[in-house]
């Protein structure tokens, strides 16, 4: 709380200073970065911006974050009014796509450094036909499982690689009774979907292959690829803590960092906060494959990008900054400053944090995909993403069978989504 307050005061002070100081350095161009990541303010000010300014004299950069919950509304209002900063932090998919369609963001395909990004990395900030990219991908979050190394050693459990091993491990932890096997609850619902369904699912629907087939209408959510992850999820329930139906997301986090749980179905964004709280050693493993030798898939979800305001007064300098963001140097700085947010650049980078390193190493072994329902499919009403939360939680709570879940989701999707003509 205290640090947040300080940061906010700092942010206000910086904003005030920059507003007042701008005319004094008329020869310098000042670029403003709009963002919702107020947690990252010090990282931008102390690490990223000085590194850029040292190389580009004459350009000053100001990072001016808004509160995350207000960002979407505020940035749209600012863009409409023409008072937004030069660089806009991009939410993935439709929120940014709408900005591009209104002509508020410029295409970035021609920038030097864009060749560092794979098609999956760029997919969150592309037009539906994939021809134009309008934000430089900055970072993604990877799903997997974080585990308590001490607990695994004490119980003599090896890191599971297949589903059978995974459930055997859970059974062993449960039989011992010292630890809650899985730190997850179904109260907040999104955990069940994001850390559950979207975590283990890519192994079933074969990552991008299934995701694109779903968008194309060649697969349905009632197909086994999409229903079976629900069935596996339902099998987690006996290993989750007592009263998991009322266990919230912070409850799960605390249960794990207090050392009372053995395995935490995770997103990589947990790494930094867990580091700060847990006193035991942590490890990570990717979602176990179904049979030994199967190809593995991971959810490497594109989360944050950076685009250029089309109405910027300094398009040249803005372009320069974006090119720097697309460079391997930025990738390295950013990923190390924020363990758990991985640069989407394919340039090799070295991470200091071992758990973050482990997460990133899966990119080399497994195929990456993004959350199945985020691109295009979350556009209508009822919202497929929200529906998936609810079905995942229902399946774990035992109030819906996996088949019913698949049927409900497909019915909701069918009500508004017509795949492009084949």
């Amino acid at each position, binding site marked *: 709380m205290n640090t947040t307050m300080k940061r906010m005061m700092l942010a206000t002070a910086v904003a005030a200073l920059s507003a007042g100081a701008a005319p004094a350095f008329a020869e310098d161009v000042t670029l403003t970065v709009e963002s919702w990541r107020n947690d990252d303010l010090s990282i931008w000010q102390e690490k990223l911006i000085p590194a850029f300014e040292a190389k580009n004299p004459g350009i000053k950069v100001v990072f001016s974050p808004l509160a995350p919950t207000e960002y979407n509304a505020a940035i749209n209002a600012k863009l409409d009014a023409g008072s937004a900063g030069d660089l806009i932090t991009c939410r993935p998919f439709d929120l940014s796509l709408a900005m591009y369609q209104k002509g508020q963001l410029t295409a970035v395909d021609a920038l030097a450094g864009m060749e560092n990004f794979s098609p999956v990395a760029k997919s969150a900030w592309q037009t539906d036909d994939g021809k134009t990219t309008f934000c430089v991908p900055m970072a993604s979050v990877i799903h997997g499982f974080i585990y308590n190394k001490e607990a695994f050693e004490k119980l003599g459990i090896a890191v599971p690689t297949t589903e059978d091993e995974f459930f055997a491990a859970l059974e062993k932890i449960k039989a011992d009774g010292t630890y809650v096997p899985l730190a997850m609850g179904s*109260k907040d619902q*999104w955990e069940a979907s994001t850390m559950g369904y979207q975590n283990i699912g890519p192994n079933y629907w074969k990552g991008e292959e299934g995701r694109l087939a779903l968008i194309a209408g060649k697969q349905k959510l009632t197909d086994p690829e999409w229903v079976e992850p629900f069935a596996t999820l339902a099998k987690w329930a006996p290993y989750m803590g007592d*009263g*998991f*139906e009322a*266990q919230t997301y912070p*409850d799960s986090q605390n249960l794990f960092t207090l050392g009372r749980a053995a395995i935490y179905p995770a997103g990589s964004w947990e790494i930094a906060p867990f580091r700060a709280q847990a006193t035991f050693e942590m490890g990570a493993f990717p979602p176990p494959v179904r049979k030994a030798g199967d190809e593995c898939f991971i959810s490497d979800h594109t989360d944050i990008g950076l685009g250029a305001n089309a109405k910027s007064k300094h398009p040249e300098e803005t372009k320069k900054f974006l090119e720097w963001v697309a460079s391997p140097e930025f990738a390295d700085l950013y990923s190390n400053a924020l363990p758990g947010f991985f640069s989407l650049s394919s340039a090799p980078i070295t991470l200091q944090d071992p758990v973050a390193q482990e997460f990133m190493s899966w990119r080399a072994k497994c195929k990456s995909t993004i959350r199945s329902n985020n691109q295009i499919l979350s556009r209508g009403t009822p919202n497929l993403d929200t529906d998936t939360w*609810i079905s995942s939680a229902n399946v774990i709570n035992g109030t819906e069978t996996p088949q019913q879940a698949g049927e409900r989701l497909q019915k909701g999707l069918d009500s508004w989504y017509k795949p492009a003509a084949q």
Partner: protein
Amino acid sequence: MTTLDTPEPDIVAKRPVRWHIAVFLLPAVLVYTAVMIIPLFDTLRLSLFRVVDGQSVFVGLDNFRTVFGDPLWSASFWNALRNNILFFLIHMVVQNPIGIALAALLSLPVLRFRGFYRTAIFLPTILSFVIVGFVWKLILSPIWGVAPFLLDIVGMKAFFAPWLGRPGSALITVSLVSVWQNIGIPMMLIYAALLSIPDEVLEAAECDGVTGWSQFFKIKLPLILPTIGIVSILTFVGNFNAFDLIYTMQGAIAGPNYSTDILGTLLYRTFFGFQLQLGDPNMGAAIATAMFFIILAGVCLYLFVIQRRIRRYQF
């Protein structure tokens, strides 16, 4: 007597225009118009439009046809309305009778520490919804909560369940928390009504041998019926506008599986959007309008049907 002969109209004509009334009313009227009346009519207007290809188009009652006719929309609307009615019924059945009972106990002349009880029971009402929501979430938490711990002490741990997380019990639990929070209001209103019953009436009753329970049911209850009517209508309006407690305890998604979704949370999700779902102000306004008419109908029913039949006594 001669003054009576003076023609009346002249006096009326000479009376100065009472500008001060308008002047004193003006600030309140302006503020109320700006923050209540204009938004209300703008919401009604908004519900008749829809955004098509970036343009706001007048579509008449189409949005309402979607809310009530489309199978998915109407399913969530009726679900929210059903939950809302249950939410209201629980308040009527639990909150108001207990409120009356507490008021009756408080008004007993033999009760000691009356001021303490009154304050203690009223206290939750002045707490913020956020505090109440979080405190109860913690109390009922299966992991850290005091509820399972206390039940364990008296050997009733088996009766504990993660109530907030089960579709069958979540709405009842949230309703009871809301009852706990709001019970001070019916208690205070009815307490005040009970105090205003003149002692002569009660003394006369005692002379006639009407005491104790029968005095409460035959003398006091009929006298406080108008207040109970007011309390009921306040509960009705409050419950059908409710949102905050559900939002803090169960989130905007009103889980599990929309089992605690009431009209307020449905409106919030529709109007402002939720996660990847973009907000739809027009459909949201349609739901808000439906809520407005539901509340209006309830209030009219009360005013024109029930209130006229309540007998009032003048002392």
